[in-house]
């Protein structure tokens, strides 16, 4: 029922999946249409360029401030949450996080979990883990519910079922939900989903959610949504578990104001979403609803690796709006599943290496034309293109080279042959005599250039040196080298 865990992704698969995606006209038109729609909606929300830039400055400042003080803020958040009656857990790895959540479920004898949208829970493949232990975990966000029915994972971090057409969804509902005739009417489909999930909220033993922002000064979790499933998941079941990456905390509740408006306008082009749900602890004495017990799981999963490096730390500024993927020429063409990682698109390319290791993700940082669109739309000014270049460098670094902050999987793309070629190149360019000899040989022996040149000639004409070098041509015009 749930997506298979995607912790080890051979790099070769990315290329194969990209090729398959490029050859799928339905998928390409789904993504093209959706991305145009989201790009336009975002643009309409930022009519004033000065305001946008001023807000991005604020967003970046808030996130950088939070990261600069991260350990202290996490301790403060923990203290505030504990004071409010929340149980706080720390997890270094997906396994630790899953074990904590399963442990809570087992203590309560829970059979079913209803989930609000949470990318952190996708990251740890929680549904799969719970299913193996006989606990049913049901996605309640409409998009997540759809991809769960299809046995897939989300293809976009904000709009999980963006790759599906209404026809796909009509067929899924007809097949999986009893007494549901095939219809492509979206209102009817949504009401079918509502009906199918309504009693799941009533019956669930545990509600699980993600967290968009956490304020250390008040111990408040700030959840952003449109559907109301997040509110139901965090209010109706007797136990609420929230899972969040350790980077989600900010110093102060008012620091969230610029982030929240940047998030909704960048993500879905909304001035505000239907619900901002601010939770500060479980049900108190005298209150009649809300969870009786509340847990927060603070997840590392590679974030401390990104944090260790002053440049890569900017990765953790992300507020998960998805604007970078909406504007990415690569994502727009291959869609989210081709990446094979929880987070696709530009943000996925810079965060997945920390979650999964560069060895499992070495092809991702190279899947970019470095056009810069992602960095330009990022509401918190993450320099994504620069980080992509940095990760390429790390992937090509000698695995044995000692560096201050080694990345997991360093040197995954390191090739002795390539290093040799570069060494020869460096030598030739540093010694004029050698360079001239090389030039003479290359122009005279051009007929011997191979017509098949590894990957290059798959889609392009073979590279062939010119018959005469630039230096020769210049000399002819009387312009010495």
């Amino acid at each position, binding site marked *: 029922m749930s997506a298979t865990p995607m912790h080890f992704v051979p790099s070769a698969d990315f290329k194969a999946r990209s090729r398959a995606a490029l050859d799928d006209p339905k998928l390409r038109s789904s993504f093209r249409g959706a991305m145009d729609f989201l790009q336009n909606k975002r643009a309409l929300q930022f009519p004033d360029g000065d305001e946008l830039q001023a807000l991005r400055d604020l967003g970046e400042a*808030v996130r950088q401030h939070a990261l600069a003080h991260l350990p202290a803020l996490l301790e403060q958040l923990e203290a505030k949450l504990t004071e409010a009656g929340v149980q706080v857990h720390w997890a270094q790895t997906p396994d630790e996080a899953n074990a904590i959540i399963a442990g809570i479920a087992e203590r309560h004898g829970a059979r079913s979990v209803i989930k609000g949208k949470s990318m952190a829970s996708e990251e740890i493949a929680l549904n799969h883990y719970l299913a193996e232990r006989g606990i049913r975990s049901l996605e309640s966000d409409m998009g997540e519910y759809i991809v769960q029915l299809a046995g897939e994972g989300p293809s976009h971090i904000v709009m999980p079922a963006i790759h599906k057409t209404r026809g796909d969804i009509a067929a899924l509902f007809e097949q999986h939900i009893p007494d549901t005739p095939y219809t492509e009417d979206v209102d009817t489909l949504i009401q079918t989903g509502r009906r199918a999930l309504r009693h799941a909220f009533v019956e669930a033993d545990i509600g699980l959610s993600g967290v968009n922002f956490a304020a250390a000064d008040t111990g408040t979790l700030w959840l952003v949504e449109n559907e109301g499933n997040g509110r139901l998941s965090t209010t109706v079941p007797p136990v609420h578990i929230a899972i969040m990456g350790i980077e989600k905390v900010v110093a102060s509740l*008012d*620091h969230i104001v610029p982030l929240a408006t940047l998030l909704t306008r960048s993500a879905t082009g909304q001035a505000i979403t239907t619900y901002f749900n601010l939770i500060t602890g479980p049900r108190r004495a005298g209150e009649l609803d809300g969870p009786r017990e509340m847990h927060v799981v603070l997840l590392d999963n590679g974030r401390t690796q990104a944090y260790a490096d002053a440049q890569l730390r900017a990765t953790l500024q992300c507020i998960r709006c998805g604007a970078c993927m909406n504007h990415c020429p690569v994502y727009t063409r291959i869609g989210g599943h081709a990446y094979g990682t929880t987070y696709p698109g530009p943000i996925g390319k810079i965060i997945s290496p920390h979650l999964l290791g560069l060895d499992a993700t070495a092809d991702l940082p190279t899947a970019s034309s470095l056009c810069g669109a992602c960095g330009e739309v990022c509401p918190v000014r993450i320099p994504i293109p620069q980080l992509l270049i940095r990760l390429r460098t790390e992937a090509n670094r000698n695995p044995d080279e000692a560096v201050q902050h080694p990345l997991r999987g360093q040197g995954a793309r390191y090739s002795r042959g390539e290093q040799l070629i570069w060494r020869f190149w460096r030598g030739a360019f540093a010694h004029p005599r050698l360079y001239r000899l090389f030039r003479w040989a290359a122009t005279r022996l051009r007929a011997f250039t191979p017509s098949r040149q590894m990957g290059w000639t798959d889609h392009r004409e073979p590279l062939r040196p010119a018959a005469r070098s630039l230096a020769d041509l210049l000399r002819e015009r009387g312009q010495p080298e």
Partner: protein
Amino acid sequence: MNADDARTRILERLRAAAPDAANAADGHAAAPTLSRRIDAHFDVRRAMHAPADAATLTDAMQVNLQAAHAEVWRTDEAGWPALLAGRLAADGVRRLLFDSQGPEGAALSRALPSTVEAVAYQRPIEDWKRELFDTIDAGFTVARSGIAGTGTLVLVPDARTPRTVSLVPPLHVALVYADTLHADLHAAMRAERWQDGMPTNLVLVSGPSKTSDIQQTLAYGAHGPRRLWVLIVERAGKAPSAAVSGAVSSALSAAVSATPSSAVPGAVPAQGESA
């Protein structure tokens, strides 16, 4: 696995990486400076646009709520109970969940026709979950305040009006006093001093539940209320709290002036289909 180990190791790794700022004894001394910068940004934005009088804020609140598919009535203290009672009856609402002890609830109780049963939230949710989900047609809440710039209700559920009143029934009816409107979220948070103490739950509601998860097509009533009715109630002799704190954005002012004036005291129904 030792649970304390994970905590210790994560914090150690973070501290090792950010030796200066992260280990400073004052924790995050720069936070107030950053807060002042945020204040300045939003204050300047508000000041750049037309000053907000009560009518402008109320207009903006109405326009933005309608744009989000809410139905809005502008009315006064004397008129709203009968107006709402009539609408509920016409809509076929049979069971209305609300706190009849509060001043608004008491007024509504008196106005309700016999066809609409007043249901009070008296038991913990566990004791009547199914009944709550399956038999309640509508929930009525009184908002603490409103945010005109985004058409947002600020709800603070409590023991008499718990969280699920505005969430589970398919129709949510909210009353907001025109004199409680703020220009934007920043102004609301500051004026109401949220950081001095948060309730267990504070919810900002900007329209009925919705989704565009199926091919970017907007549909209402995903999981929360399918419909949202809002009564904006003018109180005699009360100035809006937000008039001093600034204006709404020019985009909103433009939106307001483009719609026919409906700022007439008393019941002026306006169907929310402008989105």
